[in-house]
């Protein structure tokens, strides 16, 4: 059992949850994730570790309520408990001094990009961050991102804040204006990551993405999280979750993530119904 130390909404439907997990807090590195099971009948879901405090023995996750499990997780408050957490899982982000590194976060992906942006900064990179959201009220971690960035940009789809447009457009603008970019990390929805890969491909800029296939155990046992990278089957839980964006078969990932759409819908509807009754 893991106690929740604090739980606050950062934006509508996006919650920042700090949980006691001393072993994980001590070991985790940027880019790694946990598998979490809310309760005894819950499913195991992968969530990237956004932050950790080894002294306090806590880790922080940032959760967007999408399906039943994440929505249920977001009903939790300080003092509540989480049944199971295992981690840190996955290979840490490969960090070095690339020169100029651009960290791109789309939506709640910003939370996942944040720890790697911190690590890139610590490694001596000139860090540019671009964080996109649909509109102003969905922008998260603005202050934190600014603090680790040499240049920080916000983009919104509706233009309600920052640059009006997508993160890809902002990246293209930087490239066009002559900024020499040595490394790009992009984390967000699959269409966004796929689009970023196409922006950087012609310039041969090394680009990494963090993939989110469906997982069951997350420990290297079931093979459910297999992704196609450079025409080879890789397992996101032990070989990833970060891969070279120019080699990822995004279509296969998109298709495979649709495996349980009817069941996900059924669960989410039943949960919404239960919540309404309460």
């Amino acid at each position, binding site marked *: 059992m893991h106690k929740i130390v604090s739980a606050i909404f950062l934006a509508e439907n996006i919650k920042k949850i700090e949980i006691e997990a001393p072993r994980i807090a001590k070991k985790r590195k940027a880019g790694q994730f946990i598998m979490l099971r809310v309760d005894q009948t819950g499913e195991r879901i992968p969530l990237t570790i956004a932050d950790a405090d080894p002294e306090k023995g806590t880790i922080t996750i940032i959760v967007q309520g999408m399906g039943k499990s994440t929505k249920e997780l977001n009903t939790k408050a300080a003092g509540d408990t989480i049944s199971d957490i295992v981690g840190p899982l996955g290979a840490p982000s490969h960090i070095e001094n690339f020169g100029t590194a651009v960290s791109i976060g789309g939506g709640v992906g910003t939370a996942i990009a944040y720890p790697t942006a911190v690590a890139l900064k610590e490694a001596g990179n000139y860090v540019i961050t671009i964080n996109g959201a649909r509109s102003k009220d969905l922008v998260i971690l603005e202050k934190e991102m600014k603090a680790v960035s040499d240049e920080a940009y916000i983009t919104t789809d509706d233009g309600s804040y920052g640059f009006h447009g997508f993160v890809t457009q902002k990246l293209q603008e930087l490239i066009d204006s002559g900024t020499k970019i040595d490394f790009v990390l992009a984390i967000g929805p699959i269409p966004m990551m796929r689009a970023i890969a196409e922006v950087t491909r012609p310039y041969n800029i090394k680009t990494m993405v963090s993939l989110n296939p469906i997982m069951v155990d997350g420990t290297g046992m079931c*093979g459910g999280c297999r992704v196609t990278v450079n025409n080879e089957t890789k397992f996101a839980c032990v070989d990833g979750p970060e891969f070279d964006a120019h080699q990822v078969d995004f279509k296969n990932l998109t*298709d495979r993530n649709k495996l349980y759409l009817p069941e996900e819908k059924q669960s989410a509807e039943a949960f919404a119904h239960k919540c309404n009754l309460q």
Partner: protein
Amino acid sequence: MCPQHITTKERFAIPRQGMPAQNPEVRNKNFKEVNLGYTPELAQKEALRCIQCKDPACIKGCPVNIKIDQFIKYIADGDFLGAARKIKEDNVLPAICGRVCPQEDQCEKACILTKKYTSVAIGNLERFAADYERETGNVELPAVKAQTGKKVAVIGSGPAGLSCANDLIQLGHSVTVFEALHELGGVLVYGIPEFRLPKEIVKQEIEGLKQLGVKFITNVLAGRSVTVDELLKEEDFDAVFIGVGAGLPWFMGIPGENLLGVYSANEFLTRVNLMKSYQFPNNDTPVFNCKGKSVAVFGGGNTAMDAVRTAKRLGAEHAYIVYRRSEAEMPARLEEVHHAREEGIEFLMLMNPLEFVGNEQQWLTGAKCLKMELGEPDESGRRRPVPIKDSEFILPIDMAVISIGNGSNPLIKQSTPDIEVSKRDTIVVDLNTMATSKENVYAGGDIVTGGATVILAMGAGRTAAKAIHEKLMGIETHE
């Protein structure tokens, strides 16, 4: 018949007592245990078939050398608890082994009766004794020796880890078992289905170890949450036993394997057994909805049988085993094949999949297969399957389960570079002690052998426990 007055001729006249089982047409729709177990009468009758050889070959056929003749004598005499105690001198998990051991290739194969009759049903009797002891509430905790002050970490709570922990705790060491998943038991809970090994039995065996003082910590993945070196240096363990089991599943490397509806057996079984997805939506984890669908399992081992019988229970209209050799070459236990056939599993032998095909939405619709015939024997002595020209056809299926074995989990190797591993990434050990190339680190089970059996893993755990004890206590061994 009184055991004291039965003649050898009379013993030979008793037929092998069959194992009572659920009706196939009923059980292929539920997840309850297939075999119902002997009644005391059946067990005694079967035990009387044993002629109590002077030099019992069956014992040599058992990987942990259970005193088979002696425990069977106890059953014949009606002392069922005595039988259970006798088994437990050598096997710490008899209720589990009595169910999942391949006895027909081990003890029963060596039984002298097989020369003229059929072997004594040793496995069924082992199971009976263990169940009798448990169900009558007579499980006795073994005595634990005085504390040695030594600490041992066991990584993995599967059969290797549990048996190693059991022996070490009884020898007076402090034992902590680390498990990566949220539930204890390893392959016994995520791999072997409820209908073959009820999880309640695994739970009770583990409960017994807890009462002896074994500490269990779930949700710790060795190599990520903690490394072997950290256990030795920072957490002050005097020795580490690695029993992490097999790793990532193998796929066939044919086109279409990442289509929707193609699973590894590990994933399919983990979803159903560990995550209880057959109870979706009451449990949150979904699995492919097999109702009325055609499911093909590729492979011929016990895991393949578990997977195909699970698919049938989930409502599959057609549940196929597709295997490239003939039935005689299938590595699965005969009992499992027999049970599967009874339950309506369809066996498609001498068939080699070439490609999976799908629809526009990338859902699997079929497997392109090539028919084979048996040719000359290969290096393994089995007749090699050779393709029949122009025999390609498409087997229409909605779900495919690949069950052709597992590789090794790379995490121990990556995080402990000074442990020697083989080309296949299995850990190299001295088979007499299960010692690895790293001081005070031992390993056993599938991470050493590659995919094998529960009983072999248990045997390895016990060998390691003995060696760890001798090493920690400075006991000289003469080999």
